[in-house]
């Protein structure tokens, strides 16, 4: 339960940053926090009480006492995608800063909404 609450809180905090903050880098930070929240949620969904990691590295491990590996695989992919999006966003920010000399969203004409 605590995991669900934490992840939802993380998602909400991140979204708040994206919606309210005026600074471009702050917005990207918000996005990465949202991502983190969703990753935590997915892993929590796959958790099994008193389970162990889904790696058969020593004898005597039963499949029934392992946590669900699928969400973990999904999160691996999602983390990498998040990194890619962050990198592109930050490069765009560098470009924008070159042109406008500011990171404030209100001073950049079209980004207002």
């Amino acid at each position, binding site marked *: 339960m605590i995991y669900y*609450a*934490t992840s939802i809180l993380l998602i909400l905090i991140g979204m708040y940053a994206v919606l309210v903050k005026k*600074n471009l*880098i702050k917005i990207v930070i918000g996005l990465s926090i949202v991502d983190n929240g969703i990753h935590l949620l997915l892993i929590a969904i796959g958790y099994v009480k008193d389970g162990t990691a889904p790696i058969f590295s020593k004898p005597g491990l039963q499949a029934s006492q392992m946590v669900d590996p699928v969400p973990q695989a999904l999160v691996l992919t999602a*983390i990498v995608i998040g990194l890619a999006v962050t990198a592109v966003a930050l490069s765009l920010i560098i470009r924008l800063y070159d042109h406008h000399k500011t990171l404030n969203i209100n001073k950049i004409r079209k980004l207002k909404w």
Partner: protein
Amino acid sequence: MNWLTIVVVILSIVLIIAAVFAVYQKDLLLAVIGTSAVSVVLSVLFYILQAPDVALTEAAIGVALTTIIFVITIKKTKRFEE
């Protein structure tokens, strides 16, 4: 109440505080340090949730690479929020 549960609760609180700190801080470098701390704690949580693969990835990408590219961007732009 399991001792692990208590650890998790405390870590979650630290996590949330770090996230709020990252969002509210005017100094962008500190905000990035906040996100880095979020990743650090999150990685420990993944570990406790029996997902070492994910914990490892989060350590490699969240703690190191994301922080690094954020810091480089701040270096190339501006450190303080107006």
